[in-house]
């Protein structure tokens, strides 16, 4: 009996972990109901949730598999525009439109990624730049779908922007849970093996192609959902903003500066990214990218695990005292 329960209950799922997760969720769920947040703070948190989810999803491919993508804006844009189109022309409710956008984005990621993932390391990264830019150009040209350079406006639904906070929280909760699950599951171990040496992994029976395709689809789908969420948040999207190279870069920066391959890293990275961007956007709209470039250089040179690595070090220091 105990043996059966042991098999059904994954070893990594500790009661303490579940407790922390649920407590964090409840705290964030109740936060706007208890603390009188300003509209600005409330919306900023919704945006942070969206970017946390996107950074974690990028990290599944970039951190877990070690295939750094400079083209994830393609799925962000595809998800966003599919969701916007479904709301505008079919009249689908927002939540369904986001999910549909995510599915299409995931399928799109598979379509270009399945052949491209044979390339490793820098070669893959370079190919993804090409994919991202080609997608941007084609979607900008496809005016019937994206509205061209002038973009698409969504109907403003009263109260939607306010409730995006909780939708964003649900998204983050699911993505954080999946991030842990992937990390500790058979799939995650397979990904670790693939990251170390894809041929050796295949030799010992890891279905490398299938595993990578699964991760690619999941990563693309979540980024696509985030794109739809972003469209609802701003009620207006245009290809240059959704699909530009800067958008792809932002996912890379959040995950790498936070700590590539970890779960805490992309969360921290996304929070810091959004805050720095908001602080600098008003006075120096371009400065944040350069600042992040400098941070990137420092992280690569001194702390490969980024902010999360820094936190680990501090914790160890504190314990030693």
């Amino acid at each position, binding site marked *: 009996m105990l043996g059966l329960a042991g098999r059904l209950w994954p070893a990594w799922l500790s009661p303490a972990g579940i407790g922390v997760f649920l407590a964090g969720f409840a705290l964030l769920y109740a936060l706007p109901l208890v603390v009188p947040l300003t509209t600005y703070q409330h919306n900023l948190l919704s945006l942070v949730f969206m970017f946390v989810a996107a950074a974690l999803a990028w990290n599944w491919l970039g951190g877990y598999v070690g295939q750094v993508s400079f083209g994830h804006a393609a799925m962000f844009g595809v998800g966003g525009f599919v969701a916007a189109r479904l709301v505008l022309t079919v009249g689908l409710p927002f939540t369904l439109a986001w999910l549909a956008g995510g599915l299409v984005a995931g399928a799109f990621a598979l379509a270009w990624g399945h052949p491209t993932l044979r390339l490793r390391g820098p070669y893959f990264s370079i190919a993804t730049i090409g994919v991202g*830019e080609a997608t941007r150009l084609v979607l900008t040209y496809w005016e019937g779908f994206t509205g061209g350079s002038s973009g698409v406006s969504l109907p403003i639904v009263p109260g939607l922007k306010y409730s995006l906070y909780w939708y964003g929280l649900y998204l983050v909760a699911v993505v954080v849970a999946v991030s842990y699950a992937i990390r500790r599951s058979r799939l995650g171990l397979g990904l670790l093996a693939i990251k170390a040496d894809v041929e050796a992994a295949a030799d010992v029976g890891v279905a490398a192609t299938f595993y990578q395709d699964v991760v690619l689809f999941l990563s693309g789908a979540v980024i696509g959902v985030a794109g739809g969420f972003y469209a609802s948040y701003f009620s207006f999207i245009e290809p240059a903003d959704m699909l530009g190279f800067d958008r792809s870069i932002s996912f890379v920066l959040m995950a790498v500066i936070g700590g590539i391959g970890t779960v805490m890293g992309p969360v921290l990275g996304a929070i810091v990214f959004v805050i720095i961007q908001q602080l600098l956007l008003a006075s120096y709209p371009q400065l944040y990218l350069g600042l992040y470039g400098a941070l990137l*250089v420092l992280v*690569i*040179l001194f702390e490969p695990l980024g902010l999360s690595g820094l936190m680990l070090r501090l914790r160890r220091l504190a314990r030693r005292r």
Partner: protein
Amino acid sequence: MELLVGLALSAVLLAVLYTTMAYGLGLIYGVLRVVNLTHGGVLMAGAYLGWWLYTRLGIDPYLAIPIVVAASFAFGVGLYVVLVRHLPRGAAGGVQSLLLLFGVWLMLRNGAYLLFTGNDQAIRTGYSTQALKLAGSSLSVNRIAVFGVAIVALAGLQLLLTRTYVGRAIRAVAQNPDSCTVVGIDVERIYVITFGLGTALAGTAGLLAATIFAFNPTFGAVELLKSFVIVVLGGLGNVIGTAAGALVLASVEVFAILFMPAYLTAAVGFVLLVVVLILRPGGLFGQRVLG
């Protein structure tokens, strides 16, 4: 027919500029096994340096070439000594150096925004709008000058690589750095020189491009991608292969105008990049190391 000849001519002129643009990237990768994403930033910096020298000091862009070469060579050497030297190379460190040099590019871009704002700039000289009649089609004097300078630069580089001690050492290091130490080549010094040379070539290409195209701080991103396409098409570190790759890309871009809206021609290069990477990872003309 006249149209076709005109297009073919402009494809050739463009291809030579593209060759200078891409060669530095291929050279650095061929010798150091580092994907130099700062390349895009140096293209942009070369363009701005030429523009600044022309508008502020009145130095003609073609006379400014030695200054730009020296400045970007020094930048490359500094970048190598301060940052790149400390990174792991090859397959294991590939992504790390990629990300680090990408960070440097972002900083360069940001510097350009702070110094020169995000507005479009162009180097407009007295002869910018003059044209020559050749084979029934008119060609801009400036484009021909760019062609000439690029040819001279590439030929000089080829001579350097094949006829001098340093050049032969560079090629030897590309083939096998360990054996080079045995025969007394200072490998570290060769790395510094190679990084400087590749960067100097990028700066020059940026200056040349700036006399033809308008640019702003984001200039260099598309050009970097095109350089990748060319290096991937032509194989590594081989002037002839790189030139062939550049000619393929330039022809595809120029002739695509006949079949599709001008806006989409840029996408052709990117699609080509991905397709070639997947089908022929060694380049269309095979993988030859600095032959």
